[in-house]
């Protein structure tokens, strides 16, 4: 459980193979063929990016800003929920508010439901209208029920911090890996791989992609920087092109460490690939597209009332 990932509900009930996950999604689609045709949606990762920005905005507007771990937990809840519930039958703004409200209780940084509702109404008045406490309260039941009350989430952040010393990571390396971890919530990786595998992939990417000239980058802008650096990815295995000698040494150290550990290296590489293609895709992210697609199906069905 909490300390042992392999006994956790996350591992036992919320980690799927790609095939299983695809089947679950297909099933949702088949059940709501009509809705799917009527309301086409952008790539899931675009939507996830949109949701994560909404969460961040809501989190920032709270009386006490919500910390990253709770935002991450909320994103995992959203992903779990929407792997079982057709998104077009929900009001995502309500679901997002609820996911954050619940995640904050789990991560011991709870705020009153009123605060969440007030802030989300202020942010998205056209999607959250009537008295919404009851709606968020109801949605909480829905969310918990779909998750079978399994609400404790293991995140890769802990592994990252644990590995900082053994892998000689600098503060910059850690910040970079940290933002990669933040970004992985936009993908299906949280439903596919254990958190320590994701953490190692994030470290690997941080070490290979971080260039000496950009030492001082801000974690906030890392996503953008990562993308530009991701163009180096084809050469990631060529030490003459990636990073300084120190970075090179650290990567080598990581590779050695990995080969001595029993971590699944193939899985680590798959995570890296997934994240790199995410950065590719985000180049063409447009918030307005997501927003419109969502407002179309919420309006048409009166989900915003």
């Amino acid at each position, binding site marked *: 459980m909490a300390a042992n990932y392999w006994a956790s509900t996350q591992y036992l009930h919320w980690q799927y193979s790609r095939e299983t996950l695809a089947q679950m999604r297909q099933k949702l689609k088949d059940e709501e063929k009509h809705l799917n045709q009527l309301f086409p949606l952008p790539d899931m990762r675009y939507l996830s990016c949109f949701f994560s920005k909404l969460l961040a905005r809501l989190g920032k507007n709270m009386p006490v800003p919500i910390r990253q771990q709770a935002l991450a937990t909320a994103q995992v809840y959203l992903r779990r929920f929407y792997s079982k519930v057709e998104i077009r039958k929900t009001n995502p703004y309500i679901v997002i508010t609820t996911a954050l409200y619940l995640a904050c209780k789990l991560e011991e940084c709870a705020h009153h439901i009123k605060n969440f509702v007030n802030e989300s109404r202020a942010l998205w008045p056209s999607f959250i209208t009537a008295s919404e406490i009851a709606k968020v309260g*109801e949605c909480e*039941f829905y969310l918990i029920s779909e998750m079978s009350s399994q609400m404790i989430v293991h995140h890769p952040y802990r592994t990252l911090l644990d590995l900082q010393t053994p892998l000689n990571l600098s503060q910059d390396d850690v910040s970079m890996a940290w933002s990669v971890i933040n970004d992985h919530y936009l993908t299906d990786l949280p439903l596919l791989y254990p958190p320590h595998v994701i953490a190692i992939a994030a470290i690997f990417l941080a070490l290979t992609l971080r260039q000496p000239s950009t030492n001082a980058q801000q974690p906030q802008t890392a996503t953008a920087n990562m993308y530009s650096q991701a163009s180096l990815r084809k050469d990631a295995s060529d030490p003459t092109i990636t990073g300084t000698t120190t970075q090179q040494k650290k990567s080598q150290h990581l590779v050695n460490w990995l080969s001595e550990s029993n971590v699944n290296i193939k899985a680590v590489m798959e995570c890296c690939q997934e994240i790199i293609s995410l950065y590719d895709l985000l180049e063409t992210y447009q918030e307005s597209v997501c927003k419109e697609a969502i407002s179309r199906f919420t309006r048409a069905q009166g989900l915003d009332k």
Partner: protein
Amino acid sequence: MSLSSSGHTSQKTSGGGFSYTSKVHVLDKYKVVGFISSGTYGRVYKAIGKDGNGKEFAIKKFKPDKEGEAAQYTGISQSAVREMSLCSELSHPNIIHLVEIILEDKCIFMVFEYCEHDLLQIIQHHSQGSAGGSGGGGAGASQQQQQSSAPTNNPAPPSAAAAGGKTPIPAPVVKSTLFQLLNGLHYLHCNWVLHRDLKPANIMLTSSGAIRIGDLGLARLFRSPLNSLYSGDKVVVTIWYRAPELLLGSRHYTPAIDLWAVGCIFAELLGLRPIFKGEEAKMDGKKGVPFQRNQMGKIVEVLGMPERRRWEGLSGMPEYGHLATVGQSQQQQQQQQQQQQQPGNGGGGGGAVGQQFNERGINVGLERWYHNTLASTGYPPISASSGANGSNPADTPGELGLDLLNKLLEYDPIKRLTAEEALRHPYFAGEDGGGKPSANCFEGVDVRYPHRRVSQDDNDIRTVSLPGTRKTVGIGGAGGGGGGMDEGGAGGGKRGRYVGD
């Protein structure tokens, strides 16, 4: 009534869009056979599964704010969320087993395996001298209620002496209970879960003598990264079981606070009454959390004044300044006792009598308490040569029991035994001939404990299935607490145990 009192409001959707309806229905799966207890959060019922094998369950129902027609979704309380998430995650033979959670009609139903007994009930059974038969004084729901909430200013008078025949809990029962309790606690701590509210009422036993730690409503993870242990709710643990570092204002919860509670429970199993039965100082208006002078005084009465030279962190405690005032009120009494037993051995604490230790490192005050208590409860004397006077060394917790208790009721949380260390204590190895703990508390014991009392209000249960009847019929003081579903915020808990803003 009540198990689904608002059954007919579920069709109303609260918005134009989705509405939540449960896929599983409590009453389709379980037949409610009685009412067990009512607390701050809601109610506990006894039920039998409808799948035909007659299995018994306890269903804990968290009620919404207002019952009946006006029921509204208002957000699930932090403590319910904790209990739901932790119980779903945990799995250990000494932790209460959660069968399922059903969210239906704005209520949360947590379905647990049924436990026939709890330690409070067993302690009361022995303290009332009814351990021979089952008629006498079974701990009823009402008594449990009294004790399971925070103690009031008028604690129930010790009933034992008056009833004139308390009988000791057999020493092997005590040993098995304690071992299983520590085993469950070790599992919790290994998984970074603090229980924070251990007390006899929350420690249950199955009819086959297995201990199940229950009520994880206050439990929480410690050591989550980025998660300050200072944050969130404040004082926890029913006051009689509250560790000295918490009484002295520490807000740094560590597993050691649970081990102090285990020490108190051990002592209570032996003495049949709480060892430190203080009175809780109530919240003092805007001044915030008061210093629990009375409770600290009860501890000092037995153990002596904590001292800096033995507890390094002592002077850093927020309430350290108050400690001297505890000493003063107890001083004379203490000194008299000390002079009788330890002539010429002055205390070293802040103006009051400090702790005294014998050559084996046992707190002399505790030793005195221990021997007096064992004698008055009726355990046979501990004989140096085992088996002397025809007495079986397994009939008493013995000197090793005292040694373990001494190490659990250690002031300094850093020196206090951990659950793992306690499990390795010689008391459990039975080196003194006292035997090893049995996996079944009741093994070889001929006491028959009364069954948990459930009130059987037929009307009540029928109301549930009568269509169109929505009025809630109150049973047995069920009005007790506010809803468990209203507080969304940290520290906003309505549960009596929170002392927060």
